[in-house]
């Protein structure tokens, strides 16, 4: 079946064919699982998640009826730190490395459009990230079950789903970086800087600004929420605890001012972050990349 995603007035009038997107995605996924870096990332994430479970107090649940315990908090912290890094690196490497090696030229000398190639690569990388996330949290849950502590399957699925959403954002940003870079090394370097900015500088910047300018708590809340990593954390907290008390004054503000719409707002922020960088990457890949 063919999808017509062509934009009126755009340079290409080629119709986008789903079979081609899926063929490229399958190839990309197969390449990813053959890549030693993928196994390093997946193994590292699984090992860290498992270590957090092992380090938890005996009898503590990862996520379940006892609420937002230490283990769950640690896993959310791990996800918000590691998943953006993996997604950014995979996304940045896939376009830039294939550009550098000339394999993008090989692909695009076939009767496929740039749109099909870009989204094929994106879908392939996203599925690879799903395998990393599901594998990591799945292993942690199995380990927990092995210690006689069951994990609430729906909350585990929520954790995997939210983490995958975060990984989609990172892959999209990474692919934009890759499409805008001439060299794979430069793309990876830029991806690391973006990761650092998202995970550390965003938080520190807001804290520093708050101290220096005494911004109202509402402004602080929305400034933090604009960062996809913070939006992810907020949603994870909401999913596991059902309360934002652990977020301090900003959490109280969120509850008072937004009256139950916080999760929806955070989800909207994440959705916007999923779409915008990937769309920018697609635009860049379509229009500006000479091969």
């Amino acid at each position: 079946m063919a999808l017509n995603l062509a934009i009126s007035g755009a340079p290409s009038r080629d119709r986008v064919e789903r079979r081609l997107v899926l063929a490229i995605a399958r190839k990309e996924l197969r390449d990813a699982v053959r890549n030693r870096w993928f196994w390093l990332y997946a193994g590292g994430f699984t090992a860290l998640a498992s270590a957090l479970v092992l380090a938890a107090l005996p009898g503590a649940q990862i996520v379940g009826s006892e609420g937002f315990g230490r283990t769950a908090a640690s896993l959310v912290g791990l996800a918000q730190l590691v998943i953006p890094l993996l997604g950014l690196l995979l996304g940045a490497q896939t376009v830039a490395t294939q550009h550098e090696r000339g394999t993008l030229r090989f692909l695009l000398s076939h009767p496929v459009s740039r749109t099909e190639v870009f989204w094929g690569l994106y879908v392939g990388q996203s599925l690879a990230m799903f395998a990393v996330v599901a594998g990591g949290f799945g292993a942690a849950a199995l380990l927990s079950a092995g210690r006689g502590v069951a994990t609430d399957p729906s909350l585990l699925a929520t954790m995997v789903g939210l983490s995958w959403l975060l990984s989609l954002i990172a892959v999209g940003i990474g692919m934009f970086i890759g499409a805008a870079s001439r060299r794979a090394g430069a793309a990876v370097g830029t991806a690391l800087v973006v990761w650092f900015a998202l995970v550390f500088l965003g938080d520190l910047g807001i804290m520093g600004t708050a101290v220096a300018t005494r911004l109202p708590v509402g402004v602080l809340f929305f400034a933090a929420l604009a960062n996809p990593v913070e939006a992810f954390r907020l949603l994870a907290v909401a999913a596991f605890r059902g309360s934002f008390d652990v977020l301090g004054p900003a959490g109280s503000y969120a509850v008072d001012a937004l009256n139950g719409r916080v999760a929806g707002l955070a989800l909207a922020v994440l959705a916007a972050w999923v779409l915008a960088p990937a769309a920018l990457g697609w635009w860049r890949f379509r229009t500006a990349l000479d091969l």
Partner: protein
Amino acid sequence: MIRVTRLSKRYGRKAVVDDVSFTVAPGEAVALWGPNGAGKTTVLRCLLGLVGYDGAITVSRLDARRHGKAVRRLLGHVPQELSFFDDLTVADTLAFSAQLRGLESARVGEALELVGLSPLRAQRVGALSGGMKQRLALAVALLSDPPILLLDEPTSNLDAAARESAMAILESLRAAGRNLVLTSHHFDEVAALVDRVLALEDGRIVFDSTPAALAQRLRTRATWRVRLAPGQISQALAALQEQGYAARSNGQGILVEVAAHEQKAALDALRRVGLTVTDFEPWH
């Protein structure tokens, strides 16, 4: 079949292809002839839509910019730089290519047979020699039996035997009325395969004629390009012209017409005045 109108491609301020126009009639075979950097490969990349360009290209009346996929369905491409997915096997590479072209997998075996790669079908592409990769590229290009083949130095990585076999394949395709657009440094290839030669120099077409006319031109005018250390062009021009050579500036070097037996004398004329020649290559 192919119409190229006022094609230009710039990288920054440098025009790699500069206002090039030509047509290729149905069944015609055309060679793009010229030294490295003349713009031959870039013209092929423009035809494939791999780079952005100014001007217009139509293939079978399809605008290559707006209908890139449809145009590439009509084209088979053998690139000069052979870049495949190294982890795939030979057969998987062709199967993936067939999938992208919407072909049945049976075509894979036929293409492997045609280029003599059947015994290597399970070999990883990364482990192939340059010559074998070139055969694989030819197999990929022929997979869908396209009406037009774009061949960028199609025999450059082949040994003598493999080159002979590749030439036999290309000659049979030519005899079958296939359109060929090829770049080559080998005059014998050009003479055997094409009806027309377009010579490119600094991104412009400077000669559009038959292989026989090119042969005549090569016999009567031996032009060489001399590359020099930076800042020495005007001094070198003066030195050569003073010795009676027809010489003119050409980008970062000089074009000088000399008879075969005069090459050493021309270089000596430059060295005598203390100039550093960094390269000396034939210019067609």
